[in-house]
């Protein structure tokens, strides 16, 4: 069991290492290089060849790519994410508060969406093809068909403009205390929950249906186990497992939703920093955010796999629970 866990952790680390290579390669495909891209054509035409070379040396762009990758990777591992080209601020300090704010938003969304998906998914499966199932399925189809930028702006129109209950735009500063941010964030949270509950709900419903129709639930029912115990004790754990195995996709989807919603509401998180960074061609910032997102996805995927190993007796007692990460 322990070796299996260690091997699983090792393969996640391997994926992350390859990811750093991908993130680095993405900057190598730049036409020209970071220095040329940061200069306007006017600046460029005024500068002498030596000045351009000096600038490239300053950013280390005159070294071979493999050496630069090694140095960049060592820096990242040591917490040095590089500097912005425009203002020369350390990327780490630029994204510190936005990381906190985005994590806050993500945590609140997950705290609402996961119990809600469990509840609705179970209800939909328990009353299969009856009205709870129809409502839950209909809502989930709408949830993953309507883009967050459409539903978010629709909510702003209804609940911030026509009936002004909530703020349309989040006016808090990036370093505002968490409670101040949360007080303003009702609409963003609802928007991401609406989009992210749908997929989870379907997985729970599917798992729950399968469990309810299984032999062991049938056996428990015949031995006179009360209905509530049947649902909570026997079918619920089994229905969570298929949902857990999609944890990576769920977290990735949640991150995408958060990026869009931050833009819709002006929420001061990583998504807004990302969009500004892409427009300003600040490669180091985009790299840092991409890497952080990937780490989040890989870590949650790892945790979900470990949780499956604990929850599922079939996996627990198997020699290796290693599926692909």
């Amino acid at each position, binding site marked *: 069991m322990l070796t299996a866990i260690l091997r699983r952790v090792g393969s996640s680390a391997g994926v992350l290492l*390859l990811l750093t290579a991908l993130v680095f390669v*993405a900057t190598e495909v730049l036409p020209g290089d970071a220095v040329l891209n940061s200069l306007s054509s006017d600046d460029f035409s005024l500068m002498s060849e030596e000045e351009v070379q000096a600038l490239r040396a300053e950013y280390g762009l005159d070294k071979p790519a493999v050496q630069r990758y090694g140095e960049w990777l060592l820096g990242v591992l040591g917490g040095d994410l590089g500097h912005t080209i425009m203002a020369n601020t350390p990327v780490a300090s630029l994204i510190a508060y936005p990381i906190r704010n985005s994590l806050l938003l993500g945590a609140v969304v997950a705290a609402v969406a996961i119990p809600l998906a469990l509840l609705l998914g179970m209800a939909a499966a328990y009353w299969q093809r009856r009205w709870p199932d129809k409502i839950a399925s209909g809502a989930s189809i709408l949830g993953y068909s309507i883009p967050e930028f459409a539903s978010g702006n629709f909510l702003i129109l209804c609940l911030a403009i026509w009936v002004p209950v909530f703020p349309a735009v989040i006016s808090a500063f990036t370093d505002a205390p968490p409670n101040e941010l949360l007080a303003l964030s009702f609409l963003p949270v609802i928007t991401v929950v609406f989009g992210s509950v749908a997929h989870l709900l379907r997985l729970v419903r599917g798992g729950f249906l399968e469990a309810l129709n299984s032999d062991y639930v049938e056996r428990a029912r015949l031995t006179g186990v009360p209905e509530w115990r049947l649902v909570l004790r026997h079918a619920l754990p089994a229905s969570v497992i298929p949902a857990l195995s999609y944890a990576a996709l769920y977290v990735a989807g949640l991150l995408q939703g958060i990026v869009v919603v931050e833009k819709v509401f002006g929420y001061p998180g990583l998504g807004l920093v990302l969009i500004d960074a892409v427009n300003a061609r600040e490669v180091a910032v985009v790299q840092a955010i991409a890497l952080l997102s990937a780490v989040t996805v890989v870590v949650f995927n790892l945790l979900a796999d470990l949780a499956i190993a604990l929850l599922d007796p079939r996996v627990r007692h198997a020699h290796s629970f290693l599926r692909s990460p």
Partner: protein
Amino acid sequence: MTLNFDWRVLRHPLYTLGLALVALHLLIAIGAPLISPFDPIELIGARTEAPSANFWLGTDVLGRDYFSRLLHGGRMALLVAFTGVLISVFLGSLTGIACAYLRGPFDHAIMRLVDVKLALPGILFIALFVTGLGESAPVLVALIGLVYMPGVIRIVRAQAITQISLDYVRAAQLRGESAAAIIWREVYPNTLDIIFVEFAIRMSHAVLLLSSMSFLGLGISPPTPDWGLMVSEGVGQMSFAPWLVLAPALFISTLVLGLNFGAEALAAALGVDASRGKVG
């Protein structure tokens, strides 16, 4: 070829609705230049004019006819998504079958790459490359192709593994056919049902992802009319001209809704299990 469509699924009203929505959107997208009253990128009126007999939905912030832009707003997104998804599904399914057939180091290497890509959310993947390469249509097509390929490889590989254990593959091997011939002529046609469904599902994901990227300013760039872009352009006028946001939001939502129901209809008609949602 073993594609058996069971069109009795059309009796299901939601499937019919989905296919009808897709058909309607395709008609509008293809016919937009013929049915639009004005050129969608020509400045012809005053800024943000109210709807009138001349401009049915008024004009936008730059004075372009909003109704014409609305009709044109899905063309570029559909074209980019269609081409990108076609690339990812074609190359992805061949790679997936090759993985399933060859196994060994090739399969192992490809699956590691798939894991790496799946750890990076689509928006981040596109943002990373768009930072260097810009947001031109060919770049977006290539990126959409790359974003969805790993998922396709995984699904098709799983399906192909079952196919390869069947007798017809063994028979082809005994006839002495090459690996390439077995992959292309034997296994590929027999996984076409799942490949078709993959295509439909990925189309809905790609259209949604592209419009979100355009909304963020990282996708289709102005002055091309695009619903995602139009929503972001209309936000400033939302309090007095809400249709500038509501109309494109409705168009993109009905398109994705139609594609989702359409994908489910296709899966049901082909007898494929498609109980998977968005993301990737």
